[in-house]
């Protein structure tokens, strides 16, 4: 399969590493040979019709743009790469922009219009224009996969859409942000104040330098928007989600909760007629009372009643599990 990677940050590099490490496994198990024919970052692109040497490319990209790879081009932009290169699949892995979804939105549309399947982890285009992209994919006759956009390694969307396909999904709710869950867990187990745990999380690389999107619940709201669209069939946008963050949660509040056998979690809930994100009281021992950076998602279903799934919601290797799964799935569905 011929593949284009757009975006070569932690996720892109992580995926390239997995392609190298699992080359034998993919060939033997699925007859899948991923030829990465182009990689673009914000400064340029590396291209090779016969497939790039990913180990070499990873080495180059440690310090420089991928354009420094043999035969690479500075200033060659992602859009041109998508148009110029022959490929089966485009991975759109640029950073999330919740305002207008760009540049991912345009990348995805161009890939579809030029007949390429799209796999993305980018929440921006999905929260801005899920419906538009979904119908464009259908119109162009290409596959559009975004498993990695919600829950990182946890197969939330595919579990719901495939294995639970016979159920009516009444509600999906979950702890969908590892950063805030780490902060709330530390506050609950150690009694440490919010500001101190936040700083600690930033030093550990669990929280970003600007943690606003996580702390204010906006990242969780993005995921709720995607789940509402993809598994509940609600035509929702980010602004339809009622959001409250965790920035007002004090050690005192956590202690009062603990004394009543409860913990505070940032929970997103999607059900017909109500999309909301906010701190909630969750009893210790409840399936959503997961610790550390773990995520958990609970489905309420008419037949199966309740199913909860837990796992790591972030990290390049963990997210690669979903990104690679989407590729194998396209390969198995369509061959090639």
């Amino acid at each position, binding site marked *: 399969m011929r593949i284009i990677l757009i975006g070569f940050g932690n996720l892109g590099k992580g995926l390239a590493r997995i392609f190298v490490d699992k080359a034998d496994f993919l060939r033997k198990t699925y007859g899948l040979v991923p030829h990465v024919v182009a990689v673009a970052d914000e400064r340029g692109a590396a291209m090779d019709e016969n497939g790039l040497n990913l180990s070499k490319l990873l080495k180059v990209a440690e310090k420089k743009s991928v354009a420094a790879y043999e035969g690479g081009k500075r200033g060659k932009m992602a859009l041109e790469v998508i148009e110029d290169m022959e490929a089966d699949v485009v991975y759109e892995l640029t950073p999330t922009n919740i305002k207008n979804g760009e540049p991912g939105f345009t990348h995805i549309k161009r890939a579809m219009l030029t007949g390429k399947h799209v796999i993305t982890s980018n929440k921006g285009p999905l929260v801005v224009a899920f419906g538009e992209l979904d119908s464009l994919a259908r119109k162009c006759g290409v596959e559009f996969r975004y498993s990695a956009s919600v829950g990182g390694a946890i197969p939330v969307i595919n579990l719901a859409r495939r294995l639970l396909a016979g159920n009516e999904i009444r509600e999906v709710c979950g702890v969908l942000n590892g950063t805030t869950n780490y902060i709330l867990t530390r506050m609950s187990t150690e009694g440490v104040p919010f500001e101190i745990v936040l700083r600690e999380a930033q030093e550990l690389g669990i929280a970003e330098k600007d943690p606003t999107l996580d702390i204010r619940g906006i990242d969780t709201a993005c995921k709720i928007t995607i789940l509402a669209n993809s598994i509940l069939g609600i035509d929702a946008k980010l602004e339809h989600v009622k959001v409250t963050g965790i920035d007002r949660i004090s050690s*005192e509040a956590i202690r*009062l*909760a603990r004394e009543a056998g409860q913990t505070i979690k940032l929970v997103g809930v999607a059900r017909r007629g109500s999309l909301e994100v906010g701190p909630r009281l969750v009893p210790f021992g409840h399936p959503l009372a997961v610790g550390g950076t773990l995520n958990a998602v609970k489905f309420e279903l008419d037949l199966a009643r309740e199913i909860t799934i837990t796992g790591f919601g972030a990290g390049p290797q963990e997210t690669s599990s979903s990104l690679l799964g989407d590729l194998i799935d396209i390969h198995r569905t369509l061959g090639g």
Partner: protein
Amino acid sequence: MLVKIVMELEDVPGQLLKALEPISRFGGNIQSIMHQRERKTPLGRVPVMLVFEISDKARMNKILNELRTMGVRITQLGEREGAVRSTVLLVGHIVHTDIMGTIDRLNGIRGVMVSDLSLAMGAPNKESAARMTITAGDEKRLRLAISTLRRAAGRKKLLMITSLEETE
């Protein structure tokens, strides 16, 4: 609500303890246990009568399902409305925004009572936190009390954290 059940347990050590575990796990508060050894069934099982308090029907059903899954036979089941409750947390300038007024208003709803209040003062000029338990005669009244509290919290710029089971 109060739930009374009679279940039959095998007459071997540890059975009662095992049967009580799901009740506490799902938040049930056991009020009485009566072991009726003298009324052993022909199969040698011992009837045990148990009364426990539980916040809602969903949790009661979870407990009953768990017990059935464990192979416990439930021979009688009775429930009495009368004590549904919910715990909420409030964060903000609670004392300065007249928490007593809010409690009076909730207590003014027929069949509703604020049954517990714990206050944790923050540092000077910082927000404080309160945990409130609202008890009501039935689910409908409890919902009314919670939405009344939600409106008050909105006016007073308090952050209100409800239990996962509460829906808006």
